[in-house]
């Protein structure tokens, strides 16, 4: 089966005036459906850049990224947009909700670009809001919602098109631990039930510990990519403490 996403020797350089800033240096990884990956590493190590390549939001300057078997470098912008719309769900660092649109319309936005009619869009967005427990906040503007509620709206928006890959950039960053926990439960549930591939950038050890695979980055490189031998099923509650997990490292 084709992996959900395959990254081969991807490098991403930014030109800033005369100098080149290298955000990623020859990174390779494969993400399968149903996988749950945490990406950790110090600030500036290239985590967000990697996530943007995974989601087809950006393209490598060297190497290649294949989403659903398609090389993003060879796709026209319109086709890449279609992938972002249908295959990938993105939860951005800092939400990126539209301040003047209601929670419902924010969630429905990706459906606009599938040509779904307004009534149907709202119906499906309302379903998603219900699933993240915000059914009674549908008409609220983002500014009238708490940080945790805004984040759940952002998650609902990422899920509304039924993506096969969910990418989240520090989703619990500005949340208190209980709220963050609930959000992670939601994501983990999707991951388990619908075999959605889940990649979460985080610097929160507890968040990272819930993933069955951890990628550690430093200076634009992957310095460790390890699978946790899962005894979560034994634990039963879907949670394992970081220090009790045994790791099978490749790094």
């Amino acid at each position: 089966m084709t992996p959900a996403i395959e990254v081969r020797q991807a490098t991403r350089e930014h030109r800033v005036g005369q100098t080149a800033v290298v955000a990623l240096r020859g990174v390779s990884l494969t993400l399968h459906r149903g996988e749950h990956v945490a990406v950790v590493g110090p600030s500036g190590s290239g985590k967000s850049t990697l996530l943007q390549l995974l989601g087809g939001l950006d393209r490598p300057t060297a190497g290649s990224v294949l989403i659903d078997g398609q090389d993003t470098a060879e796709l026209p912008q319109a086709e890449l947009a279609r992938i972002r719309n249908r295959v990938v769900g993105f939860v951005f660092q800092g939400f990126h909700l539209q301040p003047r649109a209601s929670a419902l319309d924010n969630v429905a936005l990706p459906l606009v670009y599938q040509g779904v009619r307004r009534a149907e869009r709202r119906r499906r967005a309302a379903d998603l809001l219900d699933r993240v427990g915000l059914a009674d906040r549908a008409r609220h503007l983002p500014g009238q919602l708490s940080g945790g509620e805004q984040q759940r709206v952002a998650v609902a928006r990422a899920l509304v098109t039924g993506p096969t890959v969910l990418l989240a950039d520090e989703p619990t960053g500005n949340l208190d631990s209980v709220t963050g926990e609930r959000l992670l439960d939601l994501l983990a549930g999707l991951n388990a039930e619908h075999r959605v591939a889940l990649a979460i950038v985080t610097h929160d050890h507890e968040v990272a510990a819930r993933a069955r695979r951890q990628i550690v980055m430093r200076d634009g490189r992957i310095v460790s990519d390890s699978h946790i031998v899962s005894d979560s099923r034994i634990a039963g509650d879907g949670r394992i403490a970081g220090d009790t997990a045994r790791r099978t490292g490749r790094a």
Partner: protein
Amino acid sequence: MRIGEAVRVAVGALVAARLRTALTVLGVTVGVSSVMVLIAIGDGTRREVAGRVDELGSNLLLVVPGKMEIGMPTVSRMQLSDVAAVGRVVGDPDRVAATVASGEMVQAGTAKTFTTVAGVLENNRTVLVRQLARGAYLSRADVDSARRVAVLGATVARVLYGDTDPVGRQVTVAGVRFRVAGVFAPLGQSLGVDRDDEVHIPLTTAQRLFATTRVDGLAVRAADPAGMAALGDRIVAELAERHPDSAFSVVTQDQILSVLGDILDVLTGVLGATAGISLLVSGVGVANIMLVSVRERTREIGLRKAVGARPADIGAQFLAEAVLLTSVGGVLGIALGAGTTLAVERLTPLPTLLTAWSVALSFGVAATVGLLFGTLPALRAARLDPVHALRTE
């Protein structure tokens, strides 16, 4: 993305920036309405000229002294004997009308007015197709005996006599007493000139009154419109033979129409260009405001692209916004233009004509301005890199 969706988003954006929208719309409104008013005046004038020509008929030849050059008045050397000679060329003296005209004071009791007094032959009425409201026109006997009888234009009759019937009453023309024989049916205004402000008297009487033997011009009603050019040539040849040191010209109504048409085209061009500049300025305003809008909404654009908007979707959205902006300006401009046109019709002597065509054109021009000046901002928005756009503050 559907068109309806693009329009919905555009409406939202325009409403959110109300004041800015209103000011930009105002610019377009003024541009569009000025285009409309100028077209209405142009069309109105054209219609009036065409109507006047129709009224006179296409088989009318005007014979004037001098070469047909604008701004070169020539004193006529033509005499009554020349009128008879032209009558022989035409083959029917009743088809040749002659005029000598002068501006004179006319008076009845205490009422007086300055008007154009035209000395004419009795055939003037048939050659130039004039209708009478009261009384009778000048007769051949009036001309032959140089009688002091006058036919008044409707304006002169009203100014001098008010509501009373002037027929049979006395009128003083240039200090000489005349009897009013008849009153013309009103013709109304034409190109800002009151066509009822005139008095006709017999040509012979006029020559005595003005102490001259000249005839200013002839009007010939040709029997056959097909042979007009040849007839004109023969008339000019005859007159040239009789007055070797003078030039004469023949003008047909078609020529007058075409000369006036040329003048109108130039005028319309100049005025149109002025209105066009105001539209251009408003277009630049639209482009400017759209660029500001794109910059302000960079993050929104980044987000839309991140969740699946194609470059074409974003481009369409901003183009819809620009076209909507100018279309609203177009509709308001049409309303303002129609109002202004009405005011021009009522308050100025300029003729106007509002046509469905000019309304459609004004709207079309407005929408086109939006399309044209919205393209650059829309392209800029469409090409934004989503990652970069999401990072901007």
